[in-house]
């Protein structure tokens, strides 16, 4: 990104120097974005018997999905690489950081709206259907979930510390704090996975609630916690990338954007979890 706003007054010597070069990546990413949905449909078995023929084979589906995934990641890396290469064209670092920060804030607003729909589902059902919720006495929630919640909340604190240390220029401490944050997040994710496994073993699956309770609660529970876990995983990847770039000596100057974004994202994940925890475990 360059400084796109031309200054009023004198003409720049070469206006072309502001023009960013083309990029093949936005076009190439569309290939995996066609391949992956078809892969999913093929694996679901719904393409069976249809004239799309060879795609119906689940092995082809797997290739489409996995190959698409690999190509998607490759494209993202190529894209990032190009951005880093073109960094030198950017004239106005402060403006660029402002743009990117607003981007992250807006993106999180969109995410809030998506989670809002999930919460809307829960509370509409709570209001309309008194039996909506886990069957009394079944295994649900408990100390493990409370501990996981505590760990995730602490990780938000350590993440904030890391961010402040980075701004204060204390890189060494910041790095340690980032890694503690990542560790706590990873433990949370592991505990969520463990809890899921426990529940599924007792017959509480996405399609059915154990002991004949309302299956819609199971659907909402797994979608809500699953969508949140996906965000935790994304947040971990972001934090990990920041930590790695810190190792490589980035963020020494004014460019903290990636660190800021990762921290914000992490707080977002945290806030959503508090709301989700209350909705799923406390309200019923």
């Amino acid at each position, binding site marked *: 990104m360059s400084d*796109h706003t031309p200054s009023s007054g004198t003409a720049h010597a070469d206006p072309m*120097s502001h023009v*960013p070069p083309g990029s093949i990546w936005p076009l190439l990413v569309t290939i995996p974005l*066609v391949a992956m949905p078809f892969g999913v449909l093929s694996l679901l078995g*719904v393409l069976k018997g249809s004239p799309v023929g060879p795609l119906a084979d689940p092995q082809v589906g797997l290739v489409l999905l996995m190959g698409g995934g690999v190509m998607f990641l490759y494209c993202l890396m190529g894209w990032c690489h190009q951005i880093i290469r073109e960094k030198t*064209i950017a004239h106005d670092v402060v403006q660029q950081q402002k*743009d990117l920060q607003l981007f992250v804030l807006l993106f999180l607003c969109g995410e809030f709206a998506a989670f809002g729909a999930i919460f809307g589902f829960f509370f509409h059902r709570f209001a309309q259907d008194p039996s909506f919720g886990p069957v009394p006495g079944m295994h649900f929630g408990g100390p493990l979930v409370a501990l996981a919640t505590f760990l995730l909340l602490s990780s938000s604190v350590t993440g904030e510390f890391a961010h402040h240390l980075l701004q204060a220029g204390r890189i060494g401490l910041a790095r340690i704090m980032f890694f503690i944050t990542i560790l706590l997040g990873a433990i949370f994710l592991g505990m969520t996975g463990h809890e899921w496994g426990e529940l599924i073993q007792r017959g509480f699956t996405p399609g059915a609630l154990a002991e004949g309770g309302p*299956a819609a609660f199971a659907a909402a529970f797994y*979608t809500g916690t699953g969508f949140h876990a996906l965000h935790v995983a994304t947040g971990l990847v972001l934090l990990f990338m920041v930590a790695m770039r810190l190792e490589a000596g980035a963020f020494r100057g004014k460019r903290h954007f990636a660190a800021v974004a990762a921290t914000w994202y992490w707080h977002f994940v945290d806030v959503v979890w508090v709301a989700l925890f209350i909705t799923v475990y406390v309200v019923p």
Partner: protein
Amino acid sequence: MTAATLPIKRYTGVMDWLTTVDHKKIGLMYIWLVLVMAIVGGALAGAIRVQLATPGAVWEAVQAASLAGQGAPASLFSENRELYNQMVTMHASVMIFFVLIPGFVGFANYIVPLLIGARDMAFPKMNAFGFWLLVPSAVLMFASFFVQGGAASSGWTAYPPLSLQGAGQNPGQDMWVLGVHLAGMSSILAAINFIVTIANMRAPGMGWDKIPLFAWATFFTSIIQLLATPVLAAAVTMVLLDRNFGTSFTKASSGGDPVLYQHVFWTYSHPAVYIMILPGFGAISHIIAAFSGKRVFGYLGMVLAVGCITFLGFLVWAHHMFSVGMPTYLQAWFMYASLAIAVPTGIKVFSWLATMWGGNIRFTVPMLFAIGFISMFVFGGIGGLVLAMVPSDIQLHDTYFVVGHFHLAMVGGSVMLLMAMCYYWWPKMTGRTLDARTGTWVFWLMLVGVILAFMPMHLTGILGMARRVPVYYGDFKILNHVSTLGYALTFVSSLIFVAQLALSYRRKPDAGADPWGVNGVQQTFEWATSSPPPVYNFETVPPIPVADPARH
């Protein structure tokens, strides 16, 4: 400035278009995609109209035939009702996701950075990605015609349990959902890009009180897109999960609720109506002011009105579902809130009229479309008031009155807006002026077509003809024939329109910086640079007039 030392790869020719991150080229690609899709969607509508015009489809004939123990008589879809449902669904989906929404995004892409004096959008690569995302989305939607069971056939609203039919067998509905996901992602990325661009990249001295109205309208529309689209994604994901993963979001037997799906769906889809028209509200102010030789009447009121519509638009969704059986106090709330939207909308209409009042009006082609838009949109809006009122809505729900209402608003409104914008800015975008005689023909054909096609639908609806049903009582025959004739005129005028745009490329660029001669009064930035503008838009931004800010 290390730019000179950096080896920058510049593509040329076709590759230049495929890899471009220039908002102007991306805008034009959007516009051409939309033109092609409009013809495809129009052809799907043609299939519907042919069915409704075929005498063999008339209800008595069907009954007589079934009484006589014969098969249904010949008409386009009498053998295959399911195909008719697919036509209805895909016509709506194509028009919404590939014509109306990206249409305004395309124009905003080209024009908004020019209006605010920026060199490009804030995130040029993401901008390109937003455009290209529409391609996999379209691939999924159109490929679904060729799979077992055909394309989605539960209407663009995909209400369960209808949309759960054929789960695990027919992938059409699943492909539709995934296509909507991708189109939605494109919408969200574009929205974020516009908000950041307008918030951060305005020319020095252009405060919030000096932003041209089209940019303002795009800003508010982007807020709607950003906040509403994820909700649509959530709604259709419920359908996808219920179809394929055994969940029970919408299955009443297991504690789910199909009505809740409708609530979630319309939480997006009512605001989506504004995504399909608000940017045009802003643009039309430019056009009317330009050809009345005046400045926009009540700039601040116009900005507040758009903001007000944006806000209220999120609070009225359930006026689409009065007949599902909701408590009276909710019905009352959604009725009064919906009626309240008429106030800011009225402010806008009166501002357009006041801008024309006493002006030195030039009846150019864009101005014709602008005036046509106002008249058609007022009719469409009044139909909307009738439908916002609970008693009349329950009577008219799911009849052709509803179809007539939203087609007047969307074709007489949004499409007319897009065409006005196209005629107005085409010389700027391509450097080629468009022939006024052809344009005038396109306008009158279109206007008469829209009136003939959609006005009678209000009557067929009041008389009781249900929407989405391929057969009907004989009483409706004449009205349906009128509608089909109107459709034909509209479609022909669209073809002429697209041909005129395509043929304009054969000529050399002939438009000056200000081909309409409007900038003496308007003083918006897009007319200050050449037509088409250079890659970098402006070498220097023209100073913002101090005495009278660029409120055009």
